């Protein structure tokens, strides 16, 4: 589980936390209300619509992102996205704050309780299964690009009405790189480290993760070219974006889910590395948005949603150690934001009402035209 330090405070803390109003000073944005409909037109065929989800992870706080003091870390989101996006200031995650289980919960619309550090599939149907089963889509139309820490099983659940054969294809770029490296030394081990919460533990892989030989057949990329390109990149998330762009170019899946994870280096306790992770993720989001706008299969028909899986502990919570972890379950670690941009999205609007992170799956269902019957959230009215 994500929690490691359950301490009963034996001193009280007088410093209270209040949520800031995001973007108060940002130009070109209006305060939205639930009565404002989205700009989605009913005539648009769901067959042509695409949705891309980016989890801005793992775990980013308001104060290093959209709160006034954090906006300098996300210049692309602030300048290129916000004027054209609908922005939601309060997305609440009431589940377990471990990256795999939280991302699985985002993908199923149910708070999953699976072991965060085991290689286990979600127990409830994923958004990919609803999408493929309801709309009779092939496996090539739903993809997940994710870090390696257990995410290999996120594509499909164990649910008896869905499950095997109905989920998304999952590609783990770091795992793929590992397979291409014939000679591995200590440094490669460091590079391929699977997660930051338990840096010396790597779960055994299982499930239908992307096989090495499919690099060439699906992505039209030789192992040597892949390896050579990897040498030009500075982080695992850059590798994920590279793979995502290959997928967009060659397969153009209608439902693409990209899990970023560089930010979770914060567990190492070095604030500058955490901030660099946020700045890099900001840049990579812009790169993906640019790809969406320029790839013919995506331009003009794609809705992009960006949200952290959850936040991190507040500086003021004596039970934690600030940005380093997400262990306390305090309000700051549970409350984060979401940004939606692209097809059918109202531009330059900020919504202050709180919604639950479980609402993501029903919202995607309403956009793409399927019914996530077992998901527990509700469609976000401002987006559908």
């Amino acid at each position, binding site marked *: *589980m994500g929690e490691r330090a359950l301490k009963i405070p034996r001193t009280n803390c007088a410093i209270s936390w209040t949520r800031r109003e995001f973007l108060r000073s940002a130009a070109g944005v209006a305060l939205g209300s639930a009565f404002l409909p989205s700009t989605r037109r009913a005539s648009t065929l769901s067959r042509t619509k695409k949705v891309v989800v980016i989890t801005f992870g793992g775990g980013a706080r308001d104060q290093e992102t959209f709160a006034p003091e954090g906006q300098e870390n996300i210049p692309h989101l602030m300048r290129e996205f916000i004027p054209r996006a609908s922005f939601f200031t309060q997305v609440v995650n009431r589940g377990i704050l471990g990256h795999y289980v939280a991302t699985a919960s985002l993908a199923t619309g149910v708070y999953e309780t699976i072991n965060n550090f085991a290689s286990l599939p979600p127990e409830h149907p994923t958004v990919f299964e609803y999408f493929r089963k309801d709309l009779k889509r092939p496996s090539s139309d739903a993809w997940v690009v994710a870090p390696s820490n257990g995410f290999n099983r996120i594509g499909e659940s164990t649910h008896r009405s869905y499950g095997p054969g109905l989920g998304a294809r999952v590609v783990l770029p770091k795992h793929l790189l590992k397979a291409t490296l014939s000679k591995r030394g200590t440094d490669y081990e460091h590079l391929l480290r699977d997660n930051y919460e338990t840096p*010396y533990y790597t779960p055994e892989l299982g499930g239908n993760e992307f096989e090495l030989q499919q690099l060439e057949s699906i992505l039209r990329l030789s192992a040597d070219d892949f390896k050579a390109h990897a040498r*030009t990149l500075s982080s695992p998330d850059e590798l994920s974006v590279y793979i995502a762009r290959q997928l967009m170019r060659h397969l153009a899946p209608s439902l693409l889910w990209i899990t970023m994870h560089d930010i979770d280096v914060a567990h190492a306790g070095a604030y500058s590395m955490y901030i660099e992770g946020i700045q890099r993720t900001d840049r990579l989001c812009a790169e993906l948005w640019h790809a969406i706008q320029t790839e013919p299969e995506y331009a003009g028909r794609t809705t992009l949603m960006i949200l952290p899986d959850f936040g991190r502990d507040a500086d003021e919570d004596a039970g934690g150690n600030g940005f380093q972890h997400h262990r306390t379950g305090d309000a700051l670690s549970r409350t984060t934001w979401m940004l939606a941009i692209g097809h059918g999205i109202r531009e330059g609007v900020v919504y202050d009402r709180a919604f639950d992170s479980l609402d993501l799956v029903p919202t995607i269902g309403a956009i793409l035209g399927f019914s996530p019957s077992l998901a527990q959230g509700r469609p976000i009215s401002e987006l559908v």
Partner: protein
Amino acid sequence: MLPRDLKPEQFSGYPPAAKELVTNYLGALQKLPLSFLPNLLREAIDYDFKFPAERHALDRELANLGSLSPAQIGEWFQGFAKISVSTQLERSDWINSPAQFVEQLSAHLWTTHQLDAFRVAATEYADRLHAAVTPQPPPVPRLGITVIGQGVSSYDGTLFGKLRPHGGYFTHINPENGLRLLLDAVGGRAKAHSSAYGHWYIDGGEEAEHDAVLTTVSYGALASVRRSLLRNMQTETERPGMGPEALRTLMAEMRPADLGMSKDGDPIVDRFRLKLLTEGSGTQIYSTTFAQWAAREALRRAQPLTLLVRFAPRQRQRPMDELLSDSHPASALDFVGSLIDADMGAYYNWLNQQRLPGAEQSSFLVWFEGHSQALAIGPSMPRGTESAAIADLGKLLSWTI
């Protein structure tokens, strides 16, 4: 096994002072809910290796529990009593392994969505305890000093941003002999206000010359211990079936001698040093993380009257392309990144100092080592101000306290 079934002989595995403490209060412990008691035992079992401030706090907490009537116990612990604990947890050896119990309880609370209820119960308990057992003010106002930016020749970014609203920002401090002046001042306080484990010097690199009366922890002095621990962790993770929980348990059970620490050292401080490495995240690898975590734990546990923390440059995080090409040595340092880490670390040091009794009288000073920028917080220091006054660090310190 439930708390009401506790018997004195069940604590035979506890160290002597811990055993005596727990058996003295057995009647009170028997009345506590299982969702609470192991957390208290986790503190008690280490009693023999605790700092005086921790022992004193635990003594007073247990004395308070012993004084509560059954009705008051019911009132104080009603939130904890509503927490559902699994049969598996009930059957675990929570008396002898309370830390493992707490870890498993934590996972259970997340899984069963009881974490928020636990947080509320814990906060209510802390508030009641705080009201009933008023913390005693320190004999002299506390002083915290943080030195950041070692080795950085220039920096254009904003420093002390989070601290500036709370104190005075000085732009023309004479940096000459600055560290020496600060260490001498800390040594002087230690001699003037003698207190066991009351005056600390933590260094993220190699220790500078300092007064022997100070309790000292440094990243440099623990180099061989860190290497030994990393080797140990690497070996253990390669064993079949080793998962994160098992590894954590293994590390929690380590003793200073297991990692080659001398048996001649102070057992309390050595245990503290070991825990920094076995319980901290990133402390084994990054010196800035080590210094911040060591300060946090020293403040939380020893409640020092004086704490000087000096950050040092940490090793660089190597980007992926560099790792693949192996083009640069691993040992290169990240000076500016370390300054940013330490700037945040200074803020955390102040926050953690402010959590201690006597916060309103405490003072805090942070200095950009070798440069003219410093910030001072204290009862007489105007908040949110900026000054171009010329002074050395000794003078600034005298203005701060």
